[in-house]
């Protein structure tokens, strides 16, 4: 095999595989920036994947499928927000419950759809002009769906909102020090609800991408632990949307390589790679950021109660 075509294929597929990770990570970054850990990403993604497939199949249009995926992800996230913000439940356990429930429910509902190809998948977008470039064209601009580019744009927009606008100051302050935000009249609970909801919406799109665009079909458990990789990526990206882009595509490449190298190494061991890398990446960032909690929001994981006495 000639190496340019190998490289073109690898990069192009790495991008495609990184897309759900990117959307999920962007969402988790917003939730965590507001102080709420949502371990339900896997659950929200699988529900999004199911809803996306079912709706796209029923109505014959991938756009409706993706909208449904976003909506379902958001509803699931709002449930998590209700438990953790309003009822002040343990965030870890609530997220785990959401994942268990999501996997179970999607599996239950999706039984009838199992293995059927989607009749209206989201096609790739050939970008005019750029798509005709040699090497770069096929690598970046021919085999991607619109969600790849939208994801990168979303990362940029979310970064700008977080660090260059009034809203961003509010979100970051609520995650760092909710008591401070409360004292100047910011509704901490509302901000957290919104951020968690946005997180669910983005995770839902990530899940929908899997069943509507990447592999247009429904398989039980098709998210295969991506939700957990998202949690690791959020830490790896230091809660920064721009860094999430690199992280997501790096892991996309790992996933892709685990298919690509099957000729040389047994596939089961290759599939292990992203998970092992996730631990490794956290260990390395832990090594570097040992001095200061690696930029984690100060109130991450803690419920906020006004005037505790």
């Amino acid at each position, binding site marked *: 095999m000639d190496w340019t075509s190998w490289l073109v294929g690898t990069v192009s597929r790495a991008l495609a595989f990184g897309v759900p990770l990117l959307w999920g990570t962007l969402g988790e970054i917003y939730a965590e920036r507001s102080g709420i850990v949502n371990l339900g990403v896997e659950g929200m993604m699988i529900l999004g994947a199911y809803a996306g497939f079912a709706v796209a199949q029923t109505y014959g249009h991938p756009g409706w499928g993706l909208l449904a995926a976003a909506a379902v992800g958001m509803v699931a996230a709002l449930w998590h927000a209700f438990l953790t913000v309003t009822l002040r439940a343990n965030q870890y356990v609530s997220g785990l419950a959401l994942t268990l429930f999501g996997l179970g429910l999607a599996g239950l509902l999706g039984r009838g759809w199992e293995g059927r190809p989607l009749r209206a998948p989201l096609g790739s977008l050939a970008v005019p002009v750029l798509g005709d470039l040699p090497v770069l064209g096929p690598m970046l601009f021919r085999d991607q769906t619109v969600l790849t580019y939208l994801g990168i744009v979303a990362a940029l927009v979310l970064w700008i909102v977080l660090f260059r606008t009034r*809203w961003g100051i509010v979100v970051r302050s609520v995650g760092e020090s909710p*008591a401070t935000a409360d004292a100047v009249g910011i509704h901490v609970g509302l901000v957290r609800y919104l951020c968690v909801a946005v997180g669910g919406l983005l995770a839902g799109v990530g899940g929908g991408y899997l069943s509507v665009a990447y592999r247009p079909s429904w398989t039980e458990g098709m998210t295969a632990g991506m939700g957990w990789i998202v949690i690791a990526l959020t830490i790896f990206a230091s809660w920064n949307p721009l860094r999430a882009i690199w992280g997501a595509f790096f892991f996309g490449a790992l996933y892709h390589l685990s298919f690509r190298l099957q000729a040389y190494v047994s596939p089961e061991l290759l599939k292990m790679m992203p998970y092992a890398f996730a631990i490794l990446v956290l260990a390395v960032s832990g090594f570097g950021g040992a001095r200061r909690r690696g930029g984690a929001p100060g109130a991450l994981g803690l419920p906020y109660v006004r005037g505790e006495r």
Partner: protein
Amino acid sequence: MAEAAWAAIHLQNITKSFPGVLANDRVSLALRSGEVHALLGENGAGKTTLMNILYGLYRADAGEIWVKGRKVNIRSPRHALSLGIGMVHQHFKLVLPHTVAENVALGLSGTPFWAPTRAVARRLGDLSDRYGLPVDPDRRVWDLSAGEQQRVEILKALIRGAEVLVLDEPTSVLTPHEVGELLKVLGRMKAEGHAIVFISHKLDEVLEAADWVTVMRRGQVVGTVRAEETDKAALARMMVGREVVFRLTKKACTPGEAALVAEDLHVRSDRGSLALKGISLALCRGEILGVAGVAGNGQRELVEVLTGLRRAERGRVQVLGQDLTRASARRLSDSGVAHIPEERIRMGIVPGLSVEENLILKRHHRPPFCRGGILRLAAARRFAGQAIEEYRIQTPSARTPAKLLSGGNIQKLILARELSGSPALVIAAHPTYGLDVGATEQIRELLLRQRDAGAGILLVSEDLEEIMELADRIAVLFRGEIMGVVPAGEASLEEIGLMMAGERRAAAAAGGGR
């Protein structure tokens, strides 16, 4: 000011209860523009609760609030701010990793959506000049001194148009010099027509700063007087409800062998900067060495390095002649070093464990409480029974979770545990901070008794009165260095104040302290 004759704010019969406590009992208060109104009282008298109600953080169970002649029902801090009421809390409400401008812009209406910090920085500049409150809008708050952080808090309130400003214990984190600066700022604010509430439990400042003084005790108003028509003794009587003995009965100190010798200690803070820069201290058995200073000048690191919670970069620590420089917390504790920690609930106890389990926290690994890896619960129970009686810990039973105890009783539990093994050296950090009068007195007595029994006590406190009262010698910390050591009898408040602000005591005199 003639037009400010009517009260800017009127609180009437405010009542608020928390489980088990009536924090405010029919409290009434009138605040006028252009005046400083001090709210004086012991810890737990209900001053802060009252002001939190005014600021919309708590809702009163009963009572009325009138602002400029209109009855209002203040629902939230935002609502309070819109009515022109601002508050600077004792523990600053600032987002530490953010910049000054970001902190000020947070929740500030009228800032642009895009790049709000730039607009805020401009407005900050104007306000800083007008009130004499210089700050750099681009610095991160965690790099600022406590005094600078306080300025940010005041600016936050002013930029939101606060006409009434509540300052909760504003001087507790300041050097005497900074207190002077703050009073000047308050003067300018008065001149601009602001009404200021000044919460404090320190008599001197109140008399200096205020036009009016309202004294609270146990949730009730004892009385309101004009500052110029009263004096310290009268206020103290109102505050405590009986004649106040300003001095504990204290025997002369009879120093014995060296309990602690620390030489040339260099210690880094969590953020990596040098927090102690070559400190040397000596402390004998049977004496109390007070360490005074404004918070954040290395006290925390000093306590931690002496109790094994932090490693010394350089230098030596000897306890009873034994070198324990880099010893672990357990080794130091086993060698007779007791530690009364600053954060008593976070560090001093395990909230969910019972009183008796907490009482053996430091010795659970040794006989009689543990043999062969098995806990001896009967021994623990016996010990708990004794300790509860001897230290008068008020608890339903020895098996009650420690978190259910009041602050004073939690501190007594800690003292019972730390002092029961007759330690040679006691490191006490802010031992009476936030306690009521009764508990404070009891704890000071316990410390003195321990001294008379032959322990060396290192007392770190921000409360100068406490240090003057208890210590035999006083050392002053400033930016990680000792400015001087003075025998308590010779020390004047002015001299210590100067050292707290960074003035080194003449070398000859310091020599006498060693």
